[in-house]
C-alpha cells in the first residue's frame, strides 16, 4: 500500500502587499506502491511546499492528493514525515519519542514500548533508548526521527531533506541505512533533496521541478540496480544530467532577477 495520486495541484501564496506568488502550478504525478521518488530543483521551486501538501500540513489552492484512493484533507494516520530540522521532542527520551504516535492511537505503554524498541533497533540505537535528544549527535537524532515516523507503520513516508544538516560521511551512511529500511519495510518514500548525488543514489525516479511557477520540468528514471556505485559511469552521467538541468534553471532565475532589477 502507498499509492499516491497527485492531480492538478496549484498553490498560491498571497504576500502582505496583496500580490500573488505561484509556488506550484498544475502538478500532476502518480507514484506507485513501494516506489522511491526524489524531488530536486533549485531553491524556491516549491518542492517542500508540495511535500507539505501531500502531508496535509499545507492546503493546495486547487487540485487534490489521494493516498491509496483516499483524499488527503489534513495530517493523517497513513502518512509519516521526517523533517529537515530536528523535530524530536526534547522533553521525551528516545523510546518515548518513538512511541509517541502509538500513544496517540491509544496503545498501552507496554505494547507501544515493545513496538518502539523494534524500530529503535532497526535504526541501530538500542543502547540509547533512555537518552534524551540533546545527548545524541545529528545523525542519531535523524535516525530516531525515522524510527518515530515508521513506528506507526505508515504506508507513505515523506522526507524533507532529512540528511541536509549532516556531514558528508554521515550522510552517505544514512542513505545506505535508509535503503536497507526501505527494502525490509516496503514503504513508498517521497524524498526532497538538494543533492543530485543523493537523488540518484536513492531513487527509482527523480522529479525535477522548476521554479516560478513551480512545475514538473522532467521525470528521470534511474535504471541502475542497487546497491549503487557512485563512481559507476552510468551513475555519473545521470547525476551530471540532473545537475545541468538544475543549473540551467538557476541561470534562468538569475537572468530574470537581473532583468527585473534593472527595470
Amino acid at each position: 500500500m502507498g499509492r499516491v495520486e497527485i492531480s492538478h495541484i496549484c498553490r498560491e501564496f498571497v504576500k502582505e502587499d496583496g500580490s500573488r506568488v505561484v509556488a506550484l502550478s498544475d502538478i500532476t504525478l502518480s507514484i506507485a506502491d513501494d516506489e522511491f521518488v526524489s524531488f530536486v530543483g533549485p531553491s524556491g521551486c516549491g518542492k517542500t511546499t508540495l511535500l507539505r501538501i501531500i502531508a496535509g500540513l499545507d492546503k493546495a489552492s486547487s487540485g487534490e492528493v489521494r493516498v491509496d484512493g483516499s483524499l488527503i484533507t489534513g495530517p493523517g494516520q497513513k502518512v509519516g514525515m521526517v523533517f529537515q530540522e530536528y523535530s524530536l521532542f526534547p522533553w521525551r527520551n528516545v523510546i518515548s519519542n518513538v512511541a509517541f504516535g502509538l500513544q496517540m492511537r491509544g496503545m498501552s505503554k507496554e505494547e507501544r514500548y515493545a513496538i518502539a524498541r523494534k524500530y529503535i533497533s532497526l535504526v541501530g540505537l538500542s543502547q540509547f533508548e533512555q537518552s534524551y535528544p540533546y545527548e545524541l549527535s545529528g545523525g542519531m537524532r535523524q535516525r530516531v526521527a525515522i524510527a518515530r515516523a515508521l513506528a506507526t507503520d505508515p504506508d507513505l513516508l515523506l522526507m524533507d531533506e532529512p540528511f541536509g544538516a549532516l556531514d558528508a560521511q554521515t550522510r552517505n551512511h544514512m542513505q545506505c541505512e535508509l535503503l536497507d529500511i526501505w527494502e525490509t519495510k516496503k514503504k513508498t518514500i517521497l524524498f526532497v533533496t538538494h543533492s543530485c548525488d543523493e537523488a540518484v543514489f536513492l531513487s527509482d525516479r527523480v522529479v525535477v521541478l522548476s521554479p516560478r511557477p513551480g512545475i514538473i520540468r522532467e521525470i528521470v528514471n534511474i535504471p541502475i540496480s542497487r546497491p549503487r556505485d557512485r563512481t559507476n559511469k552510468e551513475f555519473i552521467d545521470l547525476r551530471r544530467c540532473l545537475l545541468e538541468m538544475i543549473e540551467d534553471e538557476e541561470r534562468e532565475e538569475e537572468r530574470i532577477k537581473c532583468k527585473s532589477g534593472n527595470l
Partner: protein
Amino acid sequence: MTGNLPGLRSPGFTILSISALLIFWQVLADEIVQNRFILPSCTDVIIAFYDLIVSGTMTMDFAISMIHFFIGLGLSLLIGVPTGIVIGWYPIANRLLDPIIEIIRPIPPLAWIPFAIVWFGLTDLAAGFVIFIGAVFPVLINTYEGFRNIPRIFVEAGKMLGCTSNAALIRFIAIPAALPHLAAGFRVASGVAWMCLVAAEMFGVSRFGLGQKIWWYYNLHQMDKVMVYMLILGFIGLFIDYLFRYGMNRTLLRWRQGEVN
C-alpha cells in the same frame, strides 16, 4: 579576570563576605550609631531571636504567612496558567483579553488592599487576594510567552504522528514545550508574592504573620525584633526560590540540560 583564582567557587568567599558584613554591622551599631532604636546591632538581633524562639509566636506567624502565601500563589496558578494557555493558543482570545489584561496589570497590587478588605473583610483571604493580584500576571504573561514561542516544528511533528485535536496538542506538545517559561513565571511570581505578603499583612488581616509582626514590633519600638522578622522573611524567600530552581531543574526540566537557550 575569571576562573584564574584558585578555588573561585569555594564556599570560603561566601563565608568571608558574610562575616565581613556582620563585623561591619556590629561596629557600625555599637561604635558609630550607638542607638538601639535606629540600628540594633548583630548581637542584639541574635538575642532578640532567642527571646522570640523561647517566648514568641514565631511558628504561628510562619504558619499563617504560609497560608496567605499559598492561597495567593495557588489562586494565581489556578487562574493564570489556564488563562495564559487560552490566550497563547487561540489568537482570538488574545485579541479579546489582551486589552483587559493590559489595563489591569499596571495597577500596583497594593492599590487593591482597600477593595480586598471591603470584599473579603479582615480575613486570610483578603491577604491572599492581594498576593494573588501580584503573582497572577507574571504567571499569565510567562505562560502566554511560552505558548507563543513553541517551535512550529514540534506542533507539525505532533500532527503528523496523530496528535491533531487542540486538547491533545496543548497537553502533549504545548505544555511540555512551554514548561521552561512556565517555571520562570512561577519563580518570578513567588518572588512578587513574597513581597506582597508583608504589605498585605500589615493591614491587620490577622493577629499573626511574619509581615504583621514587623508592624507590631515597630509599634512597640522593638526594632531588634523587627530586624529578626526581616531577616526571616529574607531567608524564607531565598529558600523558596532555591527549592524551586533546583526542584524544577532536577525533575521536570531535566531534558533541558545541555540545551542552548
